[in-house]
């Protein structure tokens, strides 16, 4: 199956873009997807430790199972508002 992955903030620079398509085996979870990116960002392990994941614009847990066509967003700690 195929999902769309969106990157925000510092992750856009780390993964070189705003989004990409990813092919995953049926039944893959949010955790499985995160492991792929952990491997790609192996030189900066802290980057992925603190992020949240949204699936179809709702915060998701690591065990959540992905579906064909899902919009998965990798979200670094947010910094809206003022300081």
């Amino acid at each position, binding site marked *: 199956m195929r999902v769309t992955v969106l990157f925000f903030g510092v992750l856009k620079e780390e993964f070189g873009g705003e989004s990409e398509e990813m092919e995953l085996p049926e039944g893959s979870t*949010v955790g499985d997807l995160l492991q792929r990116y952990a491997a790609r960002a192996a030189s900066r392990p802290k980057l992925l430790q603190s992020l949240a994941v949204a699936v179809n614009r709702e915060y998701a847990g*690591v065990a959540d199972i992905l579906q064909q066509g899902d919009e998965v967003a990798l979200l*670094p700690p*947010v910094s809206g508002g003022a300081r």
Partner: protein
Amino acid sequence: MRIEIVEEAIPADQIAAAMKAGADGAVCVFDGIVRDNTRGRKTLYLDYEAYRDMALSQMRALAEEAIAKYGVRDVALVHRLGRLMVGDTSVLIVVASAHRGAAFDACRWLIDTLKKTVPIWKKEQFEDGAVWADGEPFPEEIVPQSNGTGGQP
């Protein structure tokens, strides 16, 4: 309820004025503005970006929760994106309520929670470089804890 993400200046006066109703005894306003420095380093400007659809739905959920939780009458929550200069308002929160305690509590809870859960980020441009601002850690219920990426030792 007025929930917006805008690219232009936030019309704070107009939003606050439009919020008042006869049953209100208190209006609490929080105006978050771009400060001229971060830990002493001089800020030139900030660039805000959002996961827009999700940010809007999160903001709407926060406003609804504030009304239910604190019993306030109405809430406005407006965030600006794009390039903001020193002195610009990045976020405006207005809470109207019969009583002041609830207005203050709801207003503060809204900005504290917005800063932890609404997907908006800012990049700070200093004289000598730019960095993505450190965000506040996500609440525990949001971060995938044992996410197979190593986690906390």
